[in-house]
């Protein structure tokens, strides 16, 4: 008897499938549902609380046309300066600038205003901005409010769901497959358009605390989108960059820009505000400079390094205490349990673990998108931190929404019915569940720990041609052991598949880094064999899969012209 799709699992048909229900995924769902199409989101967590801002967020970058620095043109000029060589200004203009007003209006409408109770914006400046672009706001409930709006619009969510592969037909993406991480039930999702929105790649570098899930960004984000898009032939960009931040010592929490934005000073063991030796903006320097400064002070014996808020006024301290938990809900608990009072004591800080992500707050590492958020593969779109031109709360909100609209328009215009290939389903299902059948005794945690240590050593903030080639060779050796990692249940299966994704992203990262024969953004791409930043590299390293392995090419970008509105 011939097999049917239903023999492999439950079939669901939708117009737009969104993989990842974080900030970008939820905004995409709203954008698509508002066009009247059928929308399905899948996520390993719940769409109310998952992704990088699960427990809240406190900042949204915007220009509000109040002054010369506060315009679209000034913003794009700054973006072109701080992310030169990674940011594409015309895509930025489309995914952020054109969508900014509607995003601010939408946040107001769903009940998560960017304003203070008195109706004003509380704006702070940090990370090298020419003016206070960060709007400080209470985003503790931004995620559940977005999820409520998505559900109100009829969006369906499959939660505790691990997405494990894309389905294709004649080079087009037509949906994908995955399983419930509690029951193991397998699903085949047929979709007219698919948006990948699974964030950046964490757990890829050794964690200084020794705790791999103690990460700055969400440790469930392990490069699923980058891996799956690569496997179906999409082009990726900005994959070479390492991203590190500065965090309280012991707790890799977001929220530092709230402290420096408010005027907190970063000092060393002798009380020197040393960042002025590294950058004219001192403690408000761009993030990659802060990281370099903190790492070097400690390495060269001038640590411990602290953030000092003791000079702040009582009202500033009160604002800080009230809002610090907006970005990382449990950061105030951590500070309190350490016995620290920010008005009286210093808070010790350190450089965080490395992650694989873009080199700035305005662009990321991942699927190369165009002005419509489309990838180079028909039917496949990308949003949020897994797209090369989105990042941070502001662009995940604006660009996420745009990707929803664009995917819906693509789905509506599509007039041929896709046909799912049964042997493709069988192959993907076998690959998904193979770690449950593995007979080896390699531990997933040890495998990942080894990979992290090896990558930090050879492909971390200091790299050269030899070390990168060594990393690639070791990744290939490690990959041979991958099939010996056994999963005992579906939760463990999800983790093993994440390990696989981290490994694939690591290979792309090292290969792209070999092609960028220069240093750019300090420790975010520091080649010890090419320590200079070169004008020749003002553009992106693009990569894609071929039968002969990963192919790369360099694409120059134009920074001489600000795109038209």
């Amino acid at each position, binding site marked *: 008897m011939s097999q049917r799709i239903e023999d492999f699992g439950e079939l669901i048909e939708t117009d737009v499938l969104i993989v990842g229900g974080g900030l970008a995924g939820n905004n995409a769902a709203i954008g698509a549902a508002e066009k009247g199409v059928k929308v399905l989101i899948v996520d*390993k*967590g*719940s769409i*109310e*609380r*998952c*992704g990088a801002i*699960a*427990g*809240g967020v406190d900042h949204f970058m915007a220009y509000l046309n109040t002054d010369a620095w506060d315009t679209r043109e000034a913003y794009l000029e700054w973006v072109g300066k701080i992310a030169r060589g990674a940011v594409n200004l015309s895509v930025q203009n489309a995914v952020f600038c054109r969508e900014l007003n509607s995003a601010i209006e939408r946040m107001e409408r769903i009940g998560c205003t960017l304003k203070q109770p008195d109706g004003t914006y509380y704006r702070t400046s940090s990370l090298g901005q020419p003016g206070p672009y960060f709007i400080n706001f209470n985003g*503790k409930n931004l995620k*559940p409010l977005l999820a409520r709006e998505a559900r109100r619009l009829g969006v369906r969510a499959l*939660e*505790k769901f691990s997405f494990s592969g894309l389905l294709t037909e004649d080079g087009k993406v037509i949906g994908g497959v995955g399983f419930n*991480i509690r029951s193991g039930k397998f699903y085949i999702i047929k979709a007219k358009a698919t948006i990948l929105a699974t964030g950046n790649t964490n757990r890829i570098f050794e964690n*200084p*605390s*020794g*705790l791999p*899930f*103690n*990460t700055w960004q*969400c*440790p*469930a984000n392990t490069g699923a989108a980058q891996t799956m898009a690569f496997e179906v032939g999409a082009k990726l960009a900005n994959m070479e960059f390492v991203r590190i931040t500065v965090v309280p*010592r*012991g*707790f890799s*929490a977001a929220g530092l820009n709230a402290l420096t934005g408010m005027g907190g000073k970063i000092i060393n063991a002798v009380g020197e505000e040393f960042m002025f030796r590294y950058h004219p903006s001192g403690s408000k320097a761009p993030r990659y400079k802060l990281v370099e400064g903190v790492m070097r002070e400690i390495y060269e014996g001038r640590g411990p390094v602290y953030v000092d808020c003791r000079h702040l006024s009582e009202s500033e301290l009160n604002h800080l205490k009230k809002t610090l*938990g907006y970005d*990382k*809900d*449990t950061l105030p*608990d*951590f500070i309190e*349990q*350490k016995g620290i009072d920010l008005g009286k004591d210093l808070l010790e800080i350190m450089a965080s673990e490395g992650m694989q992500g873009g080199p700035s707050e305005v662009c990321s590492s991942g699927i190369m998108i165009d002005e419509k958020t489309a990838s180079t593969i028909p039917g496949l779109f990308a949003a949020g931190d897994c797209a090369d031109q989105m990042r941070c709360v502001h662009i995940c909100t604006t660009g996420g929404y745009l990707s929803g609209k664009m995917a819906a328009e693509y789905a509506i215009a599509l007039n041929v019915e896709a046909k799912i290939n049964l042997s493709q389903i069988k192959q993907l299902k076998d690959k998904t569940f193979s770690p449950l059948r593995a007979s080896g005794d390699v531990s997933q945690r040890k495998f990942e720990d080894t990979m992290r240590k090896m990558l930090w050593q050879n492909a971390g903030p200091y790299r050269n041609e030899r070390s990168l080639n060594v990393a690639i060779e070791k990744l290939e050796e490690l990959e041979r052991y991958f099939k010996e990692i056994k999963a005992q249940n579906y*939760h463990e299966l*999800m983790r093993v598949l994440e390990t696989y994704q981290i490994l694939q992203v690591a290979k792309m990262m090292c290969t792209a880094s070999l092609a960028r024969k220069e240093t750019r953004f300090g420790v975010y791409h520091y080649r010890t064999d090419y320590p200079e930043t070169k004008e020749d590299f003002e553009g992106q390293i693009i990569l894609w899969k071929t039968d002969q392995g990963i192919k790369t090419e360099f694409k120059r970008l134009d920074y001489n012209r600000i795109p038209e509105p």
Partner: protein
Amino acid sequence: MPPVIDKEKCNGCGICDLHCPLDVIYFDEKANLPVIKYPDECWHCGSCRLDCPTGAINIRFGPEMLFL
């Protein structure tokens, strides 16, 4: 260290299990209580505490983080 559940205050709604982004918390139907099944995978995001309707969840950091 992961979230700590106050058994006296817990009303057995299971939202902490549903909303944990890392699949760390499992609701035990028999005991009618949540169990921290994968404590090493806690991200300390605070989602469980934020959404607990009875305030039954506390976050306690261990010495491995407080005194690194």
